[in-house]
């Protein structure tokens, strides 16, 4: 029974299919906003299978061959485990314990570090610069993301995602004033998630017009497929985390309608991310860091302070 | 219509530095060269305040050497090197006299735009 939960429903298989679906959804919305037709439904699956069948080439100049192989697996595992703590159906996540919000936030940072390491190991100038950019980008969005996660935690006064998801809507109903800090936190969390997933305004590491593919340049075949699916799964985890703690996940309804509610909310958040992606140009690394610290961090701190004062009132 | 001026090959640099000092030269569009029985003509196409001017000078085919005007006017860097590649005119004092147009493995002192260089046009 447990194995089924881990590998099938709220676990790996559902995560991967939903990741591929969200990738399609994101590309379709992005295309329609640009007045284009967009990819057919099975395009992501086709890409994934095609990459799996391609030959995996490891450049000779790479000294640590073993590390080169393991890195994609590490980030894949990190993202897969983090999904187990997210409440997909109203009956709660697969496993939850009081501090799982912190665990998920930590596991979501791991892939970025792994990506920077991958860029460093593959020794070509493009991937080194890509790796360096990955790291320097990490500092600018990590702090606002954590603070944004704290605001609902403080409102509900617990670190457990499931309890936040269930109690937040009642709380907001009773104290409408909480809407302001929560809205601010949701906004900065959304922008920070866009940075974490390295999407359009912040896709500086793998800016294809400059660095070909940044850290991914030397990866090919199965390894590259693994990295790509990890990025999509990270998007699913990030979006469902945000929709769980801010929009209440699946809680008002039980059973199947609860699950459908979860889907609707995550698709709504995905739509927002795709809109941001199509509305902005890629900014430079120094602008990103100044944006992160001058605008994003203050907004989330203000939200936090507001939330704290409101609790004590 | 374009005004035409003929100048001896050794006064080219003084002529252009004079023009630049008086601020008369607005733009050096390009330098083109052509071969006419036994000597190579170099034409400097310029735009002055009152209109377009072609300054022409010629060097004998046997001894194609010309003072370069790059020290006075950096814009001519490329144009001189192109004439040097295709017609074999040596520009003295050019800071960077390397090949501009032809690939590295093109044979030396073979100049494509000279009349003696025949291209076989296969049908």
């Amino acid at each position, binding site marked *: 029974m447990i194995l089924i939960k881990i590998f099938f429903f709220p676990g790996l298989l559902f995560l991967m299919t939903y990741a591929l679906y969200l990738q399609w959804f994101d590309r379709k919305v992005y295309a*329609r906003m640009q007045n*284009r037709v967009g990819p057919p439904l099975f395009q992501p699956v086709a890409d994934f299978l095609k990459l799996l069948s391609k030959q995996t080439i490891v450049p000779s100049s790479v000294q640590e061959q073993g590390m080169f192989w393991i890195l994609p697996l590490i980030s894949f595992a990190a993202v897969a485990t983090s999904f187990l703590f997210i409440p997909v159906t109203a009956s709660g996540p697969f496993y939850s314990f009081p501090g799982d919000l912190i665990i998920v936030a930590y596991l979501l940072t791991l892939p970025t570090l792994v990506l920077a390491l991958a860029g460093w190991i593959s020794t070509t100038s493009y991937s080194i610069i890509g790796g360096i950019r990955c790291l320097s980008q990490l500092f600018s969005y990590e702090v606002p993301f954590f603070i944004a996660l704290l605001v609902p935690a403080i409102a509900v006064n617990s670190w457990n995602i499931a309890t936040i998801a269930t109690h937040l809507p009642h709380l907001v109903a009773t104290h409408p004033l909480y809407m302001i800090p929560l809205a601010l936190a949701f906004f900065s969390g959304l922008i920070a998630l866009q940075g974490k997933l390295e999407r359009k305004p912040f896709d500086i590491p793998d800016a294809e017009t400059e660095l070909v593919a940044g850290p991914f340049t030397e990866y090919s075949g199965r390894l590259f497929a693994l990295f790509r699916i990890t990025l999509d799964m990270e998007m699913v985890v990030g979006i469902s985390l945000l929709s769980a703690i801010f929009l209440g996940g699946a809680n008002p309804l039980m059973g199947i309608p609860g699950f459908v509610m979860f889907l609707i909310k995550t698709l709504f958040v995905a739509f927002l991310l795709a809109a941001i992606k199509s*509305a902005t140009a890629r900014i430079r690394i120094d602008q990103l860091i100044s944006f992160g610290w001058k605008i994003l961090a203050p907004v989330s701190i203000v939200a936090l302070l507001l939330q704290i004062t409101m609790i004590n009132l | 219509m374009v005004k035409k001026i003929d100048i001896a090959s050794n006064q080219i640099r003084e002529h252009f530095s004079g023009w630049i000092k008086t601020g008369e030269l607005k733009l050096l569009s390009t330098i083109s060269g052509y071969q006419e029985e036994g000597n190579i003509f170099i034409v400097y196409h310029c735009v002055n305040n009152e209109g377009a001017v072609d300054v022409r000078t010629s060097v004998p085919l046997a001894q194609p050497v010309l003072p370069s005007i790059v020290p006075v006017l950096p814009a001519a860097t490329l144009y001189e090197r192109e004439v040097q590649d295709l017609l074999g005119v040596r520009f003295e004092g050019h800071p960077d006299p390397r090949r501009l147009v032809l690939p590295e493995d093109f044979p030396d002192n073979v100049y494509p735009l000279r009349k003696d260089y025949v291209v076989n046009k296969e049908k």
Partner: protein
Amino acid sequence: MIKPGAIWKELLKNFSRKPATVLYPKERLNLPPNFRGRPMYDASKCIGCMLCVKDCPAQAIQIEKVAEKSYQCTFYLGRCIFCGQCADSCNKGAITMSQVYELAAFTQPSMTDTVKPV
């Protein structure tokens, strides 16, 4: 001055509109009358003056005498640049530009089209 959101109007408008792409094999754009497709040859009008052969920039046309006052014309469509100069140079109107543009072929020889007088 910087005012964010200038692009949003366009995004939402696009999102509600039908995509601008024309899905080629199924839907086709209608061609303007002046469109220059491949050249066509009318043997009855040709008097064999070879003006078109002389003027063709790509040497893509060949006129051979088949019998008295009747000529056959070969178009090397692989070389033709569809400029319409042959149609212009021919003052007997023997060559006209058609609207046929789907000329992809698998073999080089099949790109050579010889029009014989009937």
